């Protein structure tokens, strides 16, 4: 029964090869562009996220500085405190070791490491440079930020072995013409001056970071601030899945009693830009696929009009409405299938070729990846559109009243 329906469908396809080819070509292009653009977007997204993870932990826990609040207000609602200020003593985390132990025991948490950040001056003869010195535990920070990957000179390991070691950004090295093994005098905000030895130079291809960031040992950072080893300003946490961070952050905040900021919040502008990009690409690629669907719709509508006599005869011979629908939907799906298969092949080819294109600069190789999910999405979406594009004219065909055709 269904055998004859598809046989009729295939006969129509065979006798209308040109139209079939045109419609399939539309789907082919739509599919290829959809998969290609989405793969490219995924590649860009991954690249931009990766560059964020080189400087941002998934979650940063810190004590947010607050304006001093009066302990009590008088009955007239006037503040008892005039000229309130940020309380400077508040920006540290109390009992950090216990908190870090607690955080490490949480599931979904992979790395927990302390950090002390401060602004310092690099003094070199007459020149002075303001630098953000980040005190870290080298092994843990290496795990978190993969600093080694961006090292152009020296080794991260040397920082671990040398309490007075410092790893500086490439911009600083250029400005002060510092090389591995050179000494630099560092002046802190607490007027502590100390000589550090350059053990490494990193380049993140992020000018702001390269020009003003330096890594030192946690203990050295504490000493620069005249603080003891319980003085921690931030606890950096990495989760097992970076994209779950925004859900885990509030849990950690509740647990720690301090503010926990996930990386997406910390890099709001970057995230907003990538969101915009996603919306535009999704919109454009979906539209292209839908337009390809219109191609099938048009061609099937034409076939239905051409074959209206055939439809009337088939109905007279006892074909039911659903048989007629099957005939035309089969036709649409075959066209769609041809287009989808060829479209996937073209997309694979394009992704493969572009992967090998070297752009250079910050980007390196063209950031496009083979994204199986995008392929599956494209295929499913392509077939759904094909089905709809076939179903609407098919339903029209099924409603043809044979008597009105025969009486003409």
């Amino acid at each position, binding site marked *: 029964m269904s055998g004859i329906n598809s046989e009729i469908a295939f006969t*129509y396809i065979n006798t209308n090869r040109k139209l079939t080819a045109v419609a399939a070509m539309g789907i082919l292009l739509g599919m290829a562009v959809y998969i290609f653009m989405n793969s490219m977007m995924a590649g860009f997204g991954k690249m931009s996220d990766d560059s964020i993870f080189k400087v941002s932990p998934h979650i940063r826990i810190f004590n947010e500085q607050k304006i001093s609040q009066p302990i009590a207000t008088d009955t007239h609602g006037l503040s008892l405190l005039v000229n309130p200020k940020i309380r400077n003593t508040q920006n540290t985390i109390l009992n950090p070791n216990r908190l870090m132990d607690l955080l490490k025991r949480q599931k979904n948490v992979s790395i927990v490491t302390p950090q002390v950040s401060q602004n310092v001056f690099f003094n070199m003869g007459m020149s002075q440079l303001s630098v953000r010195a980040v005190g870290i535990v080298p092994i843990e920070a290496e795990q978190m930020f993969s600093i080694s990957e961006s090292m152009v000179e020296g080794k991260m390991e040397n920082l671990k072995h040398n309490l007075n070691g410092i790893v500086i950004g490439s911009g600083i090295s250029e400005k002060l013409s510092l090389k591995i093994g050179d000494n630099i005098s560092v002046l802190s905000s607490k007027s502590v001056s100390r000589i550090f030895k350059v053990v490494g130079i990193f380049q993140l291809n992020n000018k702001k970071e390269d020009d003003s960031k330096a890594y030192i040992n946690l203990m050295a950072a504490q000493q620069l601030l005249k603080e003891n080893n319980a003085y921690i300003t931030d606890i950096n946490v990495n989760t097992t899945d970076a994209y779950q961070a925004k859900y885990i952050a509030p849990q950690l905040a509740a647990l720690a009693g301090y503010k926990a900021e996930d990386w997406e919040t910390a890099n709001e502008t970057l995230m907003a830009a990538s969101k915009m990009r996603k919306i535009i690409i999704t919109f454009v690629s979906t539209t292209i696929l839908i337009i390809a669907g219109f191609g099938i719709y048009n061609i099937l509508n034409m076939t239905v009009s051409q074959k209206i006599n055939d439809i009337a005869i088939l109905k007279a011979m006892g074909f039911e409405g659903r048989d007629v629908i099957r005939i035309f939907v089969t036709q649409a799906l075959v066209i769609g299938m041809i287009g989808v298969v060829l479209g996937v092949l073209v997309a694979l080819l394009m992704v493969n070729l572009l992967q090998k294109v070297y752009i250079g600069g910050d980007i390196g190789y063209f950031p496009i990846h083979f994204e199986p999910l995008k392929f599956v999405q494209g295929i499913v979406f392509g077939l759904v559109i094909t089905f709809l594009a076939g179903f609407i004219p098919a339903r029209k065909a099924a409603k043809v009243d044979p008597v009105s055709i025969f009486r003409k």
Partner: protein
Amino acid sequence: METALKTENIEKYFYDPVRFQVLHHVGFEVRKGEFLTMAGKSGCGKSTLLYILSTMDTDYSGKLYIDDQLATGKTLDELARIRNEKIGFVFQFHYLLQEFSCLKNVMIPALRLGKRSVEEIEHKAYQKLEMLGMKEQALKPANKLSGGQQQRVAIARALINDPLIIMGDEPTGNLDSKNTQIVFDIFQELARTNNQTIVAVTHDNDFAKKSDRTIEMLDGRIIN
């Protein structure tokens, strides 16, 4: 005597452009194995009546029985199944599916019915084509045949499921006298030897006269 087809009090209206009654109180019976023709001037309602009898037109009042079963009020799909199994059609304009071979055209209703294997159906289709003297043309595409040949293939197609009733709407209307005679002989043969019922609309008086019985219509009524 068994009845193949029976109507009771069938009335039909056309609404476009104005309400107009096409059929008045039409009631008659057709025996099994009878060769019936319906004659009358054009516009008398004979084709309209045929399409009601064929179950394709369901917009009427009254009752229609096919093979002693009430067809009136059944769903479109149920009616399609009745047509597939019990009714064969021959139209004035041969109406073959142009993209298929003659053989395929003949096979389609049987393939739709799905009661036999493809091999059996093909064998049977060859038999029917042979009966109509069309076996040599079986594998030609439908649009390569002459009008008379196409009509014979259409008749073979109408016969493939061994229907109870064969209906024709001016089946010879488009044919020359030689082919008309051939078609008439085939119909008579089917009625006599296979006990199949023929209901044909015609305005060819000779054709009507030679049939077993003629229903004459005027202005939507049976007058004879």
